[in-house]
């Protein structure tokens, strides 16, 4: 027997199944709402990452001749107090918001699944330590904890461009405990199953058992949770940045663009400054949530309603 046989066994029910990804793609294509959301997300990504190259205003920074202009045929979403084109700025801010959301999800998933797997596989002392740590972090209300860490970054006078990375870390610091708990639960059920007995018989090393046999089985669940996690991270980042404790200027994010609503005159008379980024957050997050829900239906029939 070689390891390939075991791999087939751990994919479960049918050995003929091509691959998780192809299978998922085939099923998700039939779901209109999830596909619509996916197309919209692709559009948002192109808008943010390719869009600025097509904009005539991308390279330009400050232009005092055209400050605070309402939307026109030249500037579709008007200009801000520095004379910058709001539409272009929306694209550039989107790059940061999307990157922060995705990156903090990736870090949470790596931390959460590694710690969850160790906890569920070894049980005993490592389990106790990791899970109590998760309990402690989950007992502290999320927003005050994030605000506190944001204030810490401000007190330490971290450079704005450097700060973005720390904001990603902050969000994953708050995000991993829930994930670790989930993965641990999955691992606890899988480790009792026949295919794990087979790895025992083969005398595989612990690391190989965890990373090639246990964790791959949690992938369907992880895909769903990861998707919803991105949505949550984008929302948290926007709230933090709105309060001035997340991504700070000159770096732009959708959250800190809405910060202009804190000035009374911009709030009352220049809605083009803060309404578009708000809708950008809302539409992106709702698409991610709807896509996540579609994926849940496809990947996890247990949770299907």
């Amino acid at each position: 027997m070689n390891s390939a046989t075991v791999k087939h066994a751990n994919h479960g029910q049918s050995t003929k199944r091509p691959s998780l990804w192809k299978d998922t793609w085939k099923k998700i294509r039939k779901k209109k709402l999830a596909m619509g959301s996916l197309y919209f997300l692709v559009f948002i990504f192109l808008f943010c990452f390719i869009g600025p190259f097509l904009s005539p205003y991308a390279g330009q920074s400050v232009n005092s001749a055209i400050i605070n202009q309402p939307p026109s045929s030249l500037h579709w979403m008007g200009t801000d107090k520095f004379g910058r084109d709001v539409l272009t700025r929306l694209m550039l801010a989107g790059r940061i918001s999307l990157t922060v959301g995705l990156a903090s999800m990736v870090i949470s998933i790596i931390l959460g699944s590694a710690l969850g797997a160790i906890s569920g596989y070894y049980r005993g002392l490592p389990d106790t330590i990791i899970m109590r740590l998760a309990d402690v972090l989950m007992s502290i209300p999320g927003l005050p904890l994030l605000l506190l860490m944001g204030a810490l970054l401000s007190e330490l006078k971290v450079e704005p461009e450097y700060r973005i990375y720390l904001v990603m870390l902050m969000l994953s610091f708050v995000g991993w405990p829930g994930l670790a708990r989930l993965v641990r639960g999955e691992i606890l059920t899988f480790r009792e199953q026949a295919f794990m007995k087979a790895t025992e018989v083969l005398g595989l090393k612990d690391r190989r058992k965890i990373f090639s046999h246990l964790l791959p089985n949690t992938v369907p669940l992880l895909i769903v949770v990861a998707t919803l996690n991105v949505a949550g991270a984008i929302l948290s980042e926007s709230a933090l940045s709105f309060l001035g404790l997340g991504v700070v200027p000159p770096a732009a994010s959708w959250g800190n663009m809405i910060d202009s609503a804190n000035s009374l005159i911009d709030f009352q008379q220049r809605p083009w400054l803060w309404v578009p980024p708000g809708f950008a957050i809302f539409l992106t997050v709702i698409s991610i949530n709807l896509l996540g829900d579609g994926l849940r239906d496809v990947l996890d029939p247990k949770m299907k309603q």
Partner: protein
Amino acid sequence: MLLLFSDGGFTLKEYIIRRVLISIPILIGTSFLIFYLFALLPGDYVDSNPSLTPQRAAELREFYGFNEPVIKRYFNWIAGIFHGDLGFSFQYQQPVTKVINQFIWNSFIVSIISLVITWIIALITGVYSAMKQYSIFDSFVTFFVFAAMSIPSFFIGLLLIKIFAIDMNLLPVGGMIDVGSNTTGLAHYVEIGRHMILPVFILVLLGTGSLTRYVRTSMLEVVRQDYIRTARAKGLKESKIIFKHALKNALLPCITLLAFELPALFSGAIIIEQVFNWPGIGQVQLESLNNRDYPVLMTFTMFLSFLTILGNLFADVAYAAVDPRIRLK
């Protein structure tokens, strides 16, 4: 100690004792982490007052005990908590308990009203849309749920202020009472009520989303059970099946969610209070952060963590009480 390790079932009393014992190390860990995070923050209240001479600043630091090692300050803080001394707010020049007591009820009133409305709406729409699964109403509710889960709270707050307070001039822009108002009696309550409409509306909007979904899922799960089929087969009236047999069991997991709401009742909605300038504890938290009035923030964060742990404890115990399978596992 034995009962911590036995595999067999527990009586409810044993379960509660065990559950309380588990909470204690979590509480200690939480207090340490919170204290340590605050200790990491460079700068203190004395720093934020530039008018002090270096000599006076040093005196004040000595007086407040800022110079002592972290671990000693931690134990001072914990000892203080057990003596009912929760620290002294530099900003308000008052004991922290007094500051909290002064603002927390403004937050509580908004939270409790939102909570009651949220639960009523979520229960009705959740049950109804589960009963009419895949109907137009159900699709509408599902879509609404996702929309509610995806709205940034501060943005919807700003948008509604712009529409209803500024453009249409129907509702107040923010605060708890009108500027310079000195109404009393009924007129006073009506005035506060008017200021609460938008914040409460938003909190309800944000809260109903996930709760409706939860009720709906729970209801759908119960309806699929054999005993519901049996009830149908016996020819019971549909309304009786739903309200007497299904709803009761579907609500069980929801009850535990109510226990999780405990910290939210007192935490103050930081973002909503900031946007609506509502004089609640959420605003105090942000203000303390800006003014480096850390005793207030630290004590309050610890208080919320305590409520979270307590809420989890209530949830588990309530669930074990109504569903003996939990504690027999």
